């Protein structure tokens, strides 16, 4: 009987952890959406599939390179903190990349230093953001990439992602193609 109570108690703890994990995922994201600053990242999506989570668009971003003068002690696959600013068109660009959390600002992103390459004596840091997936309705995902390729060279309305950024965390809110949300495009 004592053993049974022990199992029930352990089971209750497990249930709470199983609930806590998705709840903490939700609260973290909601806090970023509520408090974060929105940035617009120029992007190009392609359409792969995840066996458990369905179709999604993989995003690659224009603002993923940062040039430094020396290689210093940058190493690939390390965590870096990317501070952002906006260019004249209102799109996000990288203001600085640091190894430690910036103290002065809240709108920085915790990202991965994916690659470093040398060009004309300068070093380019390639940043991998933690928001490269946008989940789509399975019947719309393929069409969305078609819509994107039609608007790929649209200089008036370039495709971009809206990302909320707050204290290192980030949430991908939407993707805009041809000046409207990608989900709003209807299949022909």
């Amino acid at each position, binding site marked *: 009987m004592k053993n049974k109570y022990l199992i*029930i108690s352990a089971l209750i703890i497990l249930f709470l952890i*199983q609930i806590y994990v*998705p709840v903490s*995922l939700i609260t973290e994201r909601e806090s970023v959406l509520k408090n974060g600053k929105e940035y617009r990242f120029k992007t190009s999506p392609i359409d792969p599939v*995840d066996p458990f*989570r369905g179709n999604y668009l993989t995003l690659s971003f224009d603002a993923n390179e940062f040039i430094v003068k020396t290689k210093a002690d940058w190493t690939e696959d390390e965590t870096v903190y990317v501070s952002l600013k906006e260019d004249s068109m209102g799109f996000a660009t990288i203001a600085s990349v640091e190894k430690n959390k910036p103290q002065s600002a809240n709108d920085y992103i915790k990202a991965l230093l994916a690659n470093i390459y040398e060009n004309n004596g300068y070093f380019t840091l390639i940043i991998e953001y933690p*928001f490269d997936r946008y989940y789509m309705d399975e019947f*719309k995902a393929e069409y969305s990439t078609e819509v994107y390729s039609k608007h790929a060279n649209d200089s008036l309305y370039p495709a971009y992602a809206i990302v909320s950024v707050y204290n290192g965390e980030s949430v991908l809110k939407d993707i805009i193609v041809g000046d409207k949300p990608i989900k709003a495009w209807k299949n022909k």
Partner: protein
Amino acid sequence: MQINKDLTELVDVGIISESTAENIRNYFLSKEKPQSNRLVIVFGILGAILVGLGIILILAHNWDNLSTFTKTILAFIPLLIGQGLCAFTIIKKTDRIVWRESSAVFLTFAVGASISLISQIYNISGDISSFIMTWALLCLPLVYLMKSSATSLLFIVGITYYACETNYFHYPHPENYHYWWLMVLILPFYINKLRLKINDNFVAFHNWLLPISLIIVLGTLANKAGNLMFIAYMSLFSAYYLLGSSDWFQSHKKINNGFKQLGIAGSFYLLLMLSFDSLWKDFRDDHYFDIIITFEIISIFLTTALALFLLIRKLKKSAINEVMPFDVSFLLFLLIFVFCINSFLAAVLINLMVLAIGILTIKSGSKKDHLGILNLGLLIITALIICRFFDTNISFVLRGILFILVGFGFFVTNYLMLKRRKTNEK
């Protein structure tokens, strides 16, 4: 029941008494019960797996029309139902295997559905491997708390996929060794099952799945000197064979003894590969001396130590003439690798090893009057000769003669054994 008719007939003609007939009837009735129980368990687990997977697939559609709030509620409904079922099982149906297994399996999939739906709602990145890792860790305690073998099997499948995804499916990949400690976490469950329920069907599944998983994932440790993994694999297969032939698995049916079968098949396959001199040329071209401590060396050390331990244990318990060729193949291969790698002798010695295994198997088949074992020995020799058939540096005439000799060997040995049987019957 057919037996009822026969029993009535036997009672009518006075061969058995009514009470004996009743006893026989009771015996068969009690025997039938586990059969139907087993079916209920199988269907219960299959049902839970299908419903769970169905929920995950429906959610993977990514319903655009539903609001974030509705999706969030939907993410928790299967999870709460699964938890409710598990709680009910532990409180009211602890002794019912079917309840324990199916509720734990359902909850396992509900956890997966829940985290995948949250990932979709907030576009949470993270590849499939980190998703599986979170999922596996959230469900591991269920194996122990619900005593669920099916969940343990799912866990092993999950972590094997995780290891493949991180190490095989992506290149280049960061080094990832989480599989090994996850495997260590599930082992006590299996060992305990093995100790308590020797002939349980779930144990039989573990007997196959666990060694297969290790065979798949051991290769992920190959890095700078992948050829060294041949030693690790040979030791692993010998360890499997020794483990499968040990007293722990004595009461297991042959078909349920995955360790032994995989040990035989794996050792034999490796030896056949190693009988080609071209492979040894590859070994000679590698530079092993730069390697001091790498994962290849660690895996060789661990697998060989395990095989040695099992071999010494066997030697303590049985006579030296009971040692089988596959018990020691790892030691012989290791010696050949260390001392003969730079010589043509390496491939020759391996060929002789396979030949000796074939001959010993034939001898053992003949001694036990077992046509199956006898023909297995002949098949081993045939396989060796087929391999040599592809070696272009052996003359066609010699290869032809070898084939004819083994062909005759099949006829003569089978004929002699059947003849001996007939004489014995007379």
